[in-house]
């Protein structure tokens, strides 16, 4: 219950003590399981970088064919958590992952699982567009080639570029260097590249943070189109973007606020942004901290 005293000074809302005092575990109802088929089930997921605890005890169900957004202040572990989903954390020597990540019911961290196959099926787009210093064609074809995907390469490339809403803009210039495109186009090229290996998930780590507003909106439109055929998980520090683009939103907090890379709240995006259940979520979303 919030008070508004006679002179209407907003009381209690962002008093420092409220924020710093840690609330140990989120209440049951703050993590709401979507009533839809889940593609990923994270169970007790934890990540350490050496002795630093980056992510702890995440229990989360990510629904199929929906856009799920991960939000939270810098350093809260959202990118780390994202990288767990395609085992990119394996590449960081000091990283240690515990718990289970179930994808289509199978734990991708099981000994028998090959990370290379995981990464083919779970694609990733990075914060800063990173097209290879090759032609547009070779960029898109790269994934297909290294994975030994058979078929007419021209068709594969065209199909991927179409799905990434880039075909019309580059169809006459496929031999041009990928680096010669604008920022927004480069990012769509990276998306096309990921699509060419026929994944069913696309992970996006702050895909628009290096782009101008128009390019950002184009990518957001693209995300809404792609979600019909793919499951998309996006990390973003742009609240409005999370609100615009996602169906479900998860809010995480970092170590300096008293908890260690923990999941604070998770639910349908409309609820998170109009009526969050956790005070910490509310404070973050309304910009009262972080």
């Amino acid at each position, binding site marked *: *219950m*919030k*008070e*508004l*005293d*006679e002179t*209407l*000074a*907003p009381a209690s809302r*962002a008093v420092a003590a409220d924020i710093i005092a840690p609330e140990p575990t989120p209440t049951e109802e703050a993590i709401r399981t979507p009533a839809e088929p889940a593609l990923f089930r994270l169970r007790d997921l934890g990540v350490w970088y050496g002795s630093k605890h980056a992510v702890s005890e995440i229990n989360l169900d990510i629904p199929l064919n929906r856009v799920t957004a991960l939000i939270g202040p810098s350093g809260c572990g959202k990118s780390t958590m994202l990288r767990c989903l395609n085992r990119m954390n394996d590449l960081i020597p000091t990283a240690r992952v515990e718990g289970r990540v179930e994808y289509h019911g199978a734990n991708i961290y099981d000994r028998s699982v090959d990370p290379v196959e995981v990464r083919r099926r779970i694609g990733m787009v990075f914060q800063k567009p990173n097209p290879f210093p090759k032609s547009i064609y070779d960029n898109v074809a790269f994934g297909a080639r290294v994975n030994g995907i058979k078929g007419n390469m021209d068709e594969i490339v065209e199909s991927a570029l179409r799905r990434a809403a880039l075909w019309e803009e580059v169809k006459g210039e496929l031999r041009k260097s990928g680096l010669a495109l604008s920022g927004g186009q480069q990012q769509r090229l990276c998306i096309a590249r990921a699509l060419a290996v026929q994944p069913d998930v696309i992970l996006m780590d702050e895909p628009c943070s290096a782009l101008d507003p128009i390019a950002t909106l184009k990518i957001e439109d693209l995300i809404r189109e792609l979600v019909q055929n793919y499951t998309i998980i996006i990390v973003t520090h742009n*609240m*409005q973007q999370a*609100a615009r683009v996602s169906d479900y939103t998860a809010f995480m907090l970092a170590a300096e606020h008293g908890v260690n890379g923990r999941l604070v709240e998770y639910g349908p995006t409309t*609820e998170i*942004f*109009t*009526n*969050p259940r956790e005070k910490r*979520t*509310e404070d973050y*979303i*309304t*910009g*009262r*901290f972080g």
Partner: protein
Amino acid sequence: MTRAVFERQLTEIQEDMLVMAGMVETAITQSIEALRLRDVALARRIIENDKEINRKRYECEERCIELISLQAPLASDLRTIISVLHITVDLERMADHAEGIAKIALKLSDEPPLKPYIDIPRMAEVAARMLSGALDAYKLRDAVRAREIIEMDDEVDGLYEQVYRELLTFMIDDPKTIQRATYLIWVAHNLERIADRSTNICERVVYLVEGRVYDLNVSKY
């Protein structure tokens, strides 16, 4: 603290809304006074003031829209602004009803009252209490109190029934009273609408606190 400017702006629109609410409360109580005391000057002042109340409503509305477009409010900030938007509409309509009563007071001022006014001032008193209670609930963000206020609407509806039946009997008995009686029915009607608008405000308070819009004022009919 972050967003200090926004905080201040939020505070200001709510203060403005409450100032406007104060003006409406005054208009309501004074309109009944004007009727009872056949005070023409008072009635005229009330009618004049309504323009001011309208102006204030549009001002509040503009400020709300400005805040929405410029500050991208979310969660409870958003609900606060939306509430202010809706409540000012309810307040402005209430003021119009009060103005309606004042106009009738003018019309009835040169004739003696049809009968001693008992139920109508009772209705006004309850309606005024409801409005003031709704505003208190808003200030305190008290959803429980808001729900209680909504219950009070039944009392107003009951009184309205009573007034209506009584005046109907008057009209049937003596057709010469029809004009005055119908005017009085209008007054009662206005008061009933005012009370109903207060329940709207209470629903907004519940929305503000709990995040959901409920239809709480279910008619007993």
